[in-house]
């Protein structure tokens, strides 16, 4: 049996880490302290700052739902359908309190809009976006935080 390679999906290289815990990698401006995700290509986005130096930071692993939807129709390319047939999946935009950012991502399989509410607590995981010959293409996803007595 051949070994499968795991790699960030094209475009998401350097956007997240799984070590030691899953987290998105953002930037914090060394001058004004604001946060940026995805990484700034052209300097600090704060127009009053003008900074060009950033520290790479691990963004909060937990946040709260800003909003959410189910993608019932198959998205067009460059989306890659991970199975032979489209299976509706959930997308959430999650607010990270400390960084003041809202970040969109797919929600892990099996969760639908019926399971979510604005304000609900979510955690970040690294999951497979799609598989092709020998490679699992990885991306960040959101997952509801299991409440007490519930199995995640």
């Amino acid at each position, binding site marked *: 049996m051949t070994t499968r390679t795991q790699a960030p999906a094209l*475009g998401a290289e350097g956007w997240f880490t799984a070590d030691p815990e899953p987290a998105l990698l953002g930037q914090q401006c060394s001058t004004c302290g604001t946060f940026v995700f995805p990484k700034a290509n052209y300097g600090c986005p704060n127009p009053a700052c003008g900074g060009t130096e950033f520290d790479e930071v691990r963004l909060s692993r937990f946040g709260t739902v800003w909003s959410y*939807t189910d993608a019932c*129709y198959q998205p*067009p390319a460059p*989306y890659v359908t991970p199975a032979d047939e489209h299976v509706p999946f959930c997308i959430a935009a999650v607010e990270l309190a400390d960084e003041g950012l809202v970040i969109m991502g797919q929600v892990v399989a099996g969760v639908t809009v019926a399971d979510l509410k604005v304000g609900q607590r979510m955690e970040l995981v690294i999951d497979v976006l799609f598989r092709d010959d020998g490679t699992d293409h990885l991306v960040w996803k959101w997952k509801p935080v299991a409440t007490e007595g519930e199995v995640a």
Partner: protein
Amino acid sequence: MAGQHDVAVLGVGMHPWGKWGRNFVEYGVAAAQDALRDAGIAWSDVDFVSGADTMRNGYPGYVSGATFAQALGWTGARVASSYAACASGVTALEAARTRILAGLADVALVVGADTTPKGFLAPNAGDRPTDPDWLRFRLVGATNPTYFALAARRRMDLYGATSEDFAKVKVKNAKNGLANPNARFQKEVSVDDVLASPMVADPLHLLEICATSDGGAAVILTSMDFARRHAGSAGPPVRVAGVSTVTPTYPNTIIDLPDMATDSTAVVARDERTFKQSIAHAAYEEAGIGPDDLSLAEVYDLSTALELDWYEDIGLCKQGEAERLLNDGDTQLGGRIPVNPSGGLACFGEAVPAQAIAQICEVTWQLRGQATGRQVEGATSGITANQGLFGHGSSVILVK
């Protein structure tokens, strides 16, 4: 009384919306000729052509001003071509208005047209992993309706909006569009029809999301002096009293096309207005009027729920009150402030570079009392509002 920054809308014209599958230039030329006839001026009188670009029709679409000028016959007129996604039409209008107000042009043709493919609007082909519009499809599967649905779902959880509320927006607009000869969809629908249509991006059904269409729209814009000289006994023309083409301010805190994340509020506090609220605000400031002075509004109902967001964002009611405004009948024809008397995108579908110009055509017809079958009685002022992806505001206030 005319303000010192007013310009005149001397003529408007449209090619009907549909899925005609012909060259976009044909629709633009038809709309331009329609607008010239409406204005009662010759093509050779136009000294500035301002085109709104289409990204889906090759090179001629990227240089739309010149494309339309050549199709109408070269006259040596100055030319510009603008692209601002859904806001392109108003960006093109603003180029014309500022040139007229600077005294560098007297008569401008503003024109946009599109031929659209079937289905979801998708990015251009090829891997472009540094393009946010490519990344959102690849990494998240986020289509345009995904963003519309995030806004809709938030209304449900924050304000108690229901699927029935959203469906009623479509019912209202479908009814308005019945009398509009330029509308693509002229068919009455019920709340049940809407809710029975397939779910595309929960909570939004197929009938709640705007289609993509072919169409063309044009406006003849002139200086107030030219309009007075030209009009004779025709009476005072409709005037453009305010134009907004604002961009967001940092931090932009509402997640919007094509981004996958917002700006951070950690260091700079959010502005008192969201980006969408700032769009109409800038137009009101320029025009010197407010939402209470309006007779009607044409807003960008990319989805049913987004029309409700606009009620609040253009100041027709407070945050969270849009459903009440709709259910009280305030925004239907005959109500306090009719919204989308044209039928809106619900009846047109979107022809991107033509759509913001089409909004101006409708408000002009309304202010002239020419909107047969959908007329807002005694209309004296109207607003258009729209937003283009990548941070383009678009709002125009028209008065008579």
